[in-house]
């Protein structure tokens, strides 16, 4: 995917030079390995900052919310789906966007690599499907497919669903992916075990809200967790408060979450927060045969009433 960088720069330069956009939202290299950061490029002579590799896991649609300028945005599959969500929810105007589509081959999980490498990592370079890690220990080479982010490993929409131009040919989508193995595992547990599973999952949560902040869906002017009149949820790290935050956050994403993995990626303590959202994704798929973010012209199921909507849960 490294060759995408040149193309992204070329397209961005042209867009900015021709004043087609006021800025381009893309990625630049971060200060630590495997942590690229979002960047806003407003000047054609700054496009050299833009890069693309397997560390662009943050969801850039998050930076579009409510913007009125003309924007060029670099979008991989999941970003493009969240752009669609933004369009459906009137958070951005399609006419203001120039979507630079990036056919994605998956992002790598810096935690996985950190764990298997075991020493401090100083530099990570990509060579096709290989990831070369340099650091305090010996240089190691890993297969990219073994160190993919979990959501990327089961992704079935790698290609952007909406775009104005592409940086490369579309990639082949992954087929025969079992998206819900982990959800089924939890579903098969008895209630006490389920409770204990989530208790264990959340025990390290420090309520920093990074997961919420990274999510393009979480754009309410005042989030329910920040509200103090009334206070919907306690602000402590009492397990009850933490759990309340997490399950309500997930409910707010029901039928909207694209499983982009940004929430999980940004968590400083490595909590698999997708364990909540994926259950809802699975339910929406099973109950309404719905996948979010594929078509800006269709209203999502929780937004419309249909007489054949399932209602077995209501007495």
């Amino acid at each position, binding site marked *: 995917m490294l060759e995408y960088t040149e193309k992204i720069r070329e397209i961005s330069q042209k867009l900015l030079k021709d004043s087609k956009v006021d800025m381009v939202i893309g990625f630049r290299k971060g200060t630590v390995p495997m942590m690229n950061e979002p960047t806003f490029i407003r000047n054609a002579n700054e496009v050299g900052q833009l890069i693309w590799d397997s560390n662009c896991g943050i969801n850039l649609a998050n930076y579009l919310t409510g913007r009125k300028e003309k924007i060029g945005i670099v979008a991989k599959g999941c970003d493009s789906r969240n752009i669609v969500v933004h369009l459906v929810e009137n958070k951005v105007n399609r006419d203001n966007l120039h979507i630079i589509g990036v056919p994605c081959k998956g992002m790598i999980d810096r935690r996985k690599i950190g764990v298997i490498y075991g020493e401090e990592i100083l530099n990570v370079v990509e060579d096709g499907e290989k990831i070369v890690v340099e650091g305090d220990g010996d240089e190691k080479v890993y297969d990219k497919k073994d160190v993919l982010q979990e959501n990327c490993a089961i992704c079935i929409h790698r290609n952007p669903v909406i775009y104005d131009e592409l940086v490369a040919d579309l990639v082949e989508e992954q087929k025969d992916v079992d998206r819900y193995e982990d959800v089924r595992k*939890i*579903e098969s547990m008895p*209630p*006490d*075990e*389920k*409770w*204990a*599973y*989530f208790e264990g999952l959340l025990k390290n949560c420090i309520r920093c809200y990074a997961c919420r902040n990274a999510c393009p869906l979480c754009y309410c002017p005042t989030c329910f967790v920040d509200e103090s009149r009334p206070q919907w949820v*306690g602000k*402590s790290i*009492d397990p*009850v*408060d933490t*759990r*309340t935050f997490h*399950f309500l956050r997930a409910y707010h994403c029901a039928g909207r979450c694209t499983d982009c993995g940004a929430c999980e990626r940004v968590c400083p303590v490595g909590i698999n927060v997708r364990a*909540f959202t994926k*259950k809802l994704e699975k339910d929406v798929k099973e109950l309404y045969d719905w996948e979010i973010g594929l078509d800006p012209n269709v209203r999502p199921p929780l937004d419309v009433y249909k007489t054949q909507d399932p209602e077995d*849960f*209501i*007495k």
Partner: protein
Amino acid sequence: MEHMGIEPGRLQFSWISSAESTKFVKVVKEVTETIKSLGPRKHFIKTEAKVA
């Protein structure tokens, strides 16, 4: 909610019009019975913060 460990039956939903008094009574009875058979709740109980 059940997915994260709340016992099935503890959380119930119903739609009852203000004119459906018999349904209301029936549902209240059913809910009370189910909850009684489940016993006291174990989850989402917040104890007072202990202050020294």
